[in-house]
């Protein structure tokens, strides 16, 4: 490598490193805005603004879904296994919505701490499973939901 080329390579790599540091710091400073949703523990700590359009996310707590038989009203708890958030929603839930599955709810946090959702999005994870495997796991005494521990890990990282 000639000295001229070596210098050029050093300049390019140096500029790249600087740019990477700049982008990295920017993203770090903006991390609260880049996160798509607040987790229940952040809401419990009072990080989330009240009466403003926000998103919250976590797992639908097992056995917490209460449907009103007369209307489309549904209430459930979203949990990150540290704290819980009560969500009220009126509308049609996505096909993948179920207890133990991840959700992202879009709406407003009311002053009494309940979340009034305008929209419920299902969140799926990387645990894809064909019928036989799912059956085999159930026979062995596991529930497929046992494998959906990702939001717990996400909560630990915070």
């Amino acid at each position, binding site marked *: 490598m000639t000295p001229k*080329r070596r210098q*050029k*390579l050093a300049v*390019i790599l140096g*500029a*790249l490193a600087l*740019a*990477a540091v700049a*982008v990295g710091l920017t*993203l770090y400073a903006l*991390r609260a805005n*880049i*996160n*798509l*949703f607040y*987790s229940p523990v952040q809401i419990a700590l009072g990080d989330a603004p009240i009466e403003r359009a926000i998103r919250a*996310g976590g797992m639908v707590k097992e056995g917490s879904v209460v449907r009103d038989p007369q209307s489309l009203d549904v209430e459930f708890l979203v949990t990150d296994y540290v704290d819980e958030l009560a969500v009220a929603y009126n509308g049609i839930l*996505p*096909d*993948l919505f*179920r207890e133990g*599955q991840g959700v*992202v709810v879009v709406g407003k946090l009311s002053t009494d701490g309940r979340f009034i959702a305008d*929209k*419920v*999005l*299902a*969140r*799926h*994870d*990387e*645990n*894809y*499973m*064909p*019928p*036989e*495997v*799912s059956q085999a796991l159930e026979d062995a005494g596991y529930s*497929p939901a046992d*494998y959906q521990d*990702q939001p717990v890990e*996400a909560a630990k990282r915070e």
Partner: protein
Amino acid sequence: MWTFIHKWGSPKWFYAISAKVQPWCWAVSLILIATGTVWGLAFTPTEVNQGQGDSFRIIYVHVPAAFLAQSVFVSMAAASLVFMVWKVKVADMAATVMAPFGAVMTFVALFSGAVWGVPTWGTWWMWDARLTSMLILLFLFLGVIALRSAFTRREGGSKAASVLAMVGVINIPIIKYSVDWWFTLHQSATFTLTSRPLMPMEMWLPLLIMVLGFYCFFIALTLMRTRSEILRREIDKRWVRDLIKEAQ
């Protein structure tokens, strides 16, 4: 060793050797993609754990396309670096022909993801970190293509496009780790070559075959299009004129 690498920098050598490699790449990629498509669409069981059913089969296009989108950008940036530092013209030609393919792959990944999002998430778009950084990747590809053609002299366009490609590479780790660093609607990585697959073999193997098939397709297409680019740019060279004479 070094002389061997240096030979690849010669358009004439590249043109001759790629003619021999290219048919094999096409054959392997076609076999892999055909096998993966039939296996993934017809023989792989449906997904039940999360109630996705057959819509999960989009993974067999979505994941390979997303892999390729990022790999093509890294390859393009590497070729740009070789061009900028060592002034290898073939590297610039390769970078030129990679950009449109990368843009197409990024679009396929975004589009198939949107189609997948409707039945699973309940929305086709969400400004989460993974989707947004992938959209930025598409704009980077388009920017590289546009910048290259915005100059009257090719040299200027090549340099400007190379700089954008090299700086744009910073976006790649952001795409990759976006699902780990931030809360996103998008799931974490399904498919890694480094750790034990999370999905059972009958779902994972066709995906592996599709990813490898897409990579072979990328290599074959890049070789083919670089050859055309060599002929276009070296049209005044003696060896190209001899080649044309022979063909007539």
